């Protein structure tokens, strides 16, 4: 039986802020979206206070102040760097790591001989000590059950943040108590359709006839049912990402040495990520690129690096994102290394309709695409940055309201933590 662990950072954005700002510990902390629009992340204390995700800042400003809530603007440079650190620590514990989002990763525990909960506790305390970030870990025979176990670990303090859902009896009990919507990949509409045929709980779905599910609901729901039985068959591409981040990364079939090849890979991952994002009608405010060598080839010189770039105006335009991705790649690429893997992550996602400048951000807008192309031609002919998007280089004040931005402690020399 394969064994999969889901490691999920607790209240990730608030936790990143707290590593360098201990005054925020034990306090209600909220992180605001781009332009300080609304609440996109909360500390546990803020959740317990009943502060809702998406609460608009300008309407709640006074209330938060009165209740002693600490407010921070989103700092993607910091969160991206801390995320890369957490994932790097996790890689020490498994040869197979699938990064699912900025704060979640699946670890394949096959071949780990140690007792799996002990192993997970060791992972948890190592991540905590090395990076200062607290994580919860759920273990199960499939990704879906690992996710269920993770949820259980988060909600039940007695677990100490680690829970293995491997016992069949425990699986039945927990699946009977959950709502269908609590299961990964089951949204409200699908849950209603499942209930309409008498499947009222995840346990019902698990126990139903496979062929019936496939005929009626399609292959993805069939996979979810199989996963609930403990058959590992779900690919991360099957399920939509959380609304916090979109990640596309792949290992190369063979090691890549030349910049051109790496660039091609990064551009194609960027366009995949942008496609995924547009499908969810979202636009990104930050793009982060990483590259790494194969650490299992001990005789190879090792190198890994990541770099994130803030976009003054959120965009889902593939061309624009690809340009920024290449800018990031140019900064981190070093010659004479053999690269195994690259990835692109989009952060600071917001609904396209909310983006201030709606002219250039939709790549499905044919006019915008034509303008992009014309611009690219001119830039190629007369040199890079001859023509720029008005929003991209000049940073209009209205688009960058980040009044509560903490320093970029890990990515700017001028922003280092000051120690007396």
């Amino acid at each position, binding site marked *: 039986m394969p064994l999969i662990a889901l490691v999920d950072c607790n209240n990730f954005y608030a936790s990143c802020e707290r590593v360098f700002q*201990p*005054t925020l*510990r034990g306090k209600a902390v909220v992180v605001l979206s781009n332009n300080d629009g609304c609440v996109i992340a909360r500390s546990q204390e803020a959740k317990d206070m009943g502060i809702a995700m998406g609460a608009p800042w300008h309407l709640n400003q006074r209330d938060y102040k009165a209740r002693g809530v600490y407010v921070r603007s989103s700092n993607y440079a910091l969160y991206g760097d801390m995320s*890369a*650190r*957490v994932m*790097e*620590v996790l890689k020490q514990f498994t040869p197979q790591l699938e990064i699912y989002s900025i704060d979640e990763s699946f670890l394949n525990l096959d071949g780990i001989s140690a007792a799996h909960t002990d192993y997970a506790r060791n992972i948890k305390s190592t991540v905590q*000590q*090395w*990076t*200062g970030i607290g994580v919860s870990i759920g273990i199960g025979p499939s990704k879906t059950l690992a996710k269920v176990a993770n949820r259980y670990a988060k909600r039940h303090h007695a677990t100490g943040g680690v829970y293995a859902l491997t016992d069949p009896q425990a699986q039945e009990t927990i699946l009977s108590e959950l709502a269908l919507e609590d299961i990964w990949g089951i949204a409200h509409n699908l849950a209603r359709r499942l209930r309409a045929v008498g499947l009222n709980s995840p346990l019902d779905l698990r126990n139903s006839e496979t062929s019936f599910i496939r005929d009626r609901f399609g292959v993805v729901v069939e996979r979810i049912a199989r996963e609930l039985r403990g058959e590992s068959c779900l690919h991360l591409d099957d399920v939509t990402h959380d609304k916090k981040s979109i990640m596309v990364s792949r290992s190369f079939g063979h090691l890549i040495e030349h910049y*051109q090849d790496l660039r091609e890979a990064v551009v194609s991952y960027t366009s995949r990520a942008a496609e995924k994002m547009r499908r969810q009608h979202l636009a990104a405010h930050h793009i982060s690129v990483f590259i790494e060598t194969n650490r299992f080839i001990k*005789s190879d*010189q090792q190198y*890994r690096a990541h770099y994130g770039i803030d976009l003054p105006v959120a965009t889902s335009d593939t061309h624009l994102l690809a340009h920024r991705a290449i800018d990031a790649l140019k900064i981190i690429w070093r*010659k*004479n290394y053999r690269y195994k893997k690259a990835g692109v992550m989009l952060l600071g996602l917001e609904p396209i309709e909310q983006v201030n400048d709606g002219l250039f951000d939709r790549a499905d807008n044919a006019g915008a695409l034509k303008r992009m192309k014309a611009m690219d031609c001119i830039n190629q002919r007369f040199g890079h940055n001859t023509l720029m998007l008005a929003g991209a280089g000049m940073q209009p004040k209205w688009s960058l309201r980040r009044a509560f931005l903490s320093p970029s*402690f*890990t990515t700017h*020399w001028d922003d*280092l*933590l*000051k*120690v*007396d």
Partner: protein
Amino acid sequence: MTFFIPFMSDYVAAGFPSPAEDYLERPLDFNELLIQNPPATFAVRISGDSMTGIGLFPGDIAIVNRALQATHGAIIIALVDGAFTIKRYDKRGVHVQLQAENPHYSPIVIRDDMDFEVWGVVTSAIRMLHPTMKR
């Protein structure tokens, strides 16, 4: 198209294969020199003068490895009642003191009613000496 030809520094010796032959020559890498454990390593800026006795001055960058256990005598970044401080870790038995390296400062004695945490262990420090260097 440009190709990079790897440059091998070892001449080929007949008889014994050199283990160093496997390695390509690269420029000195200061990351390699200063960073033992990248995901656990952070840089902080020293702002006070309590450690000048061992050559740590305001404006210096201290490199901190959070993966190391603090042992007696180590230079650490500590959190004392919510404030960061850099000091020498002095632990004898269960008693912890944070020693300054400047006669103008007295040691901080950690009592039970204080919030105390080792944030990380300082492994090296960097100081820019020429006015053209960014700091």
